[in-house]
C-alpha cells in the first residue's frame, strides 16, 4: 500500500469503521454509517474492534479522582439521595406540624448532613474491617506556614488544610504518589475550609511507600489533570 494507491473496498470499510468510532465523520456520511451498524453485523464488529483497541490509549491516562461532590450530585440526579434540606415530596402536608414532625425533621437534616459530609463512606459492599490499617501524613511547606494533615483508615481518606491557604486565584491540588517511579494521581483540590474525604479506588493501596503531595495549580485545579505547578509540600504515609 503506497500513498497513491486507492484503498480497496474492504480497506475503505475498515477505515470508515475507525472514523465512526473516533467521531471523525460528519453529516450524511455519519448518518449512513450509523444506519449501517444495525444492518451490517460485520461493520458493527469492526466499529467495536476499533473501540476496543483505541480504549487502550485511555487506559494509559493518569487517573484523576473527582471531587466528592460529583458523586453526591450523581446520587441526587438519580434520586438515590436527597439534596441537603430538600422537602420530601412524599410527606403528607400536616404530618410535620406536630412535635414528632419537628424531631423527624431534625433527624432528616442530621442524616442528610451526615450523608453530605461523608460522601466517601464505604457502602455495604466495602465494610470497614475492624482494625483496618491506619496511616497518617503531615504535609508541611518549605516555610512551615503551609500545614495539611491526612489520615487513612482502611480505604477511607481524609485530608484537611490546617494553615497556609493558596493565594488568590490559585489552589493546592492533592496528589497520591504510589511509589518511587509511579505517576502521581490527582486526588482533587484541597478545600480552603473543612476536610476532603474520599474512598480510595481499586489500584490505590495505602502503604509506607506512598507519598502525598500538594502542588500549586490554577484555581479549580490543573485544567488537564496533570500537575503543572511546583510541589509545595510532600510527605510519606506513616503506619499508626
Amino acid at each position, binding site marked *: 500500500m503506497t500513498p497513491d494507491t486507492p484503498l480497496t473496498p474492504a480497506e475503505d470499510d475498515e477505515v470508515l469503521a475507525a472514523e465512526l468510532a473516533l467521531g471523525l465523520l460528519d453529516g450524511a456520511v455519519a448518518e449512513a454509517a450509523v444506519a449501517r451498524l444495525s444492518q451490517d453485523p460485520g461493520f458493527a464488529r469492526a466499529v467495536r474492534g476499533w473501540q476496543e*483497541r*483505541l480504549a487502550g*490509549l*485511555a487506559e494509559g491516562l493518569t487517573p484523576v479522582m473527582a471531587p466528592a461532590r460529583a458523586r453526591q450530585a450523581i446520587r441526587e440526579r438519580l434520586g438515590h439521595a436527597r439534596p441537603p434540606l430538600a422537602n420530601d415530596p412524599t410527606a403528607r402536608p400536616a404530618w410535620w406540624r406536630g412535635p414528632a414532625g419537628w424531631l423527624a425533621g431534625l433527624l432528616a437534616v442530621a442524616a442528610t448532613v451526615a450523608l453530605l459530609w461523608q460522601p466517601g463512606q464505604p457502602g455495604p*459492599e466495602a465494610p470497614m474491617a475492624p482494625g483496618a490499617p491506619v496511616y497518617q501524613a503531615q504535609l508541611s511547606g518549605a516555610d512551615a506556614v503551609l500545614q495539611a494533615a491526612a489520615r487513612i483508615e482502611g480505604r477511607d481518606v481524609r485530608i484537611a488544610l490546617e494553615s497556609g491557604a493558596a493565594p488568590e486565584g490559585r489552589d493546592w491540588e492533592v496528589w497520591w504518589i504510589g511509589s518511587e517511579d509511579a505517576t502521581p494521581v490527582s486526588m482533587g483540590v484541597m478545600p480552603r475550609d473543612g476536610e476532603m474525604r474520599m474512598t480510595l479506588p481499586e489500584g490505590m493501596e495505602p502503604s509506607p511507600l506512598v507519598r502525598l503531595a500538594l502542588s500549586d495549580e490554577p484555581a479549580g485545579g490543573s485544567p488537564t489533570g496533570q500537575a503543572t505547578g511546583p510541589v509545595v509540600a510532600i510527605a510519606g504515609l506513616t503506619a499508626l
Partner: protein
Amino acid sequence: MTDARRSHLESLISRVALGDRAAFDALYDATSAKLHAVCLSVLKDRPEAEETLQEVYIRIWQGAARYAANGLSPMTWLITIARNRSIDRLRARSARPPTAPEDAAAQVASGDPTPESATIAAQERRMLDECLAQLAAPQAGAVRAVYLEGFSYADLAEREGLPINTVRSWLRRSLLRLKDCVTQ
C-alpha cells in the same frame, strides 16, 4: 486489565442493571478516576469535566441493562461513554455541527463469543503502543489527539498546516497500518 478485574467489573455492571445501588457505588469507586481523566483529557476544563462525569455515570446507570449484549469489554464500554459525552460537549462548545461519535455500536447486540473477543482485544491493546511507535511521529500524534483530545480533521489540518483532504488521507492510511500491526 486482568481477567479477575474484568469479571469483577462485569458483575458490578450486571448488578447495576438490576438497580443495585451498592454495586453502582462500587463501580464508581473502581472507575471514576479513570473516566474523569478521560473527560479532562478531552475538555481540559475541571468544572466541565466534572459535570460531564456526572452525565457519564447517569448514562451508565441507565444503560447498564444493555451492556451485556454489546460484546465490549467493561472498561471499553465505560471509556467510550466518557469519551463520547466529552466530545459532544467539546463540539457543543465550539458550535461546530455535531459529528456524532457513536454510542450506537454499543447499542447493537453482538453475536460474538465474548471470551474470544476479549482475548483478542487484550492482545491488540498490548500491541497498541508498539504499533503507534512504528508510525511516523505526526501520524501517531494525530491518532492520540483525535482519540484523547477529540480533534476533528479540521483541527488536525489547522495544527499541521495542511489541507483537510491531505490530513484525512494520511490519517486513514495510518489507521489501516495501525490495525494491520496490532492484528498481526
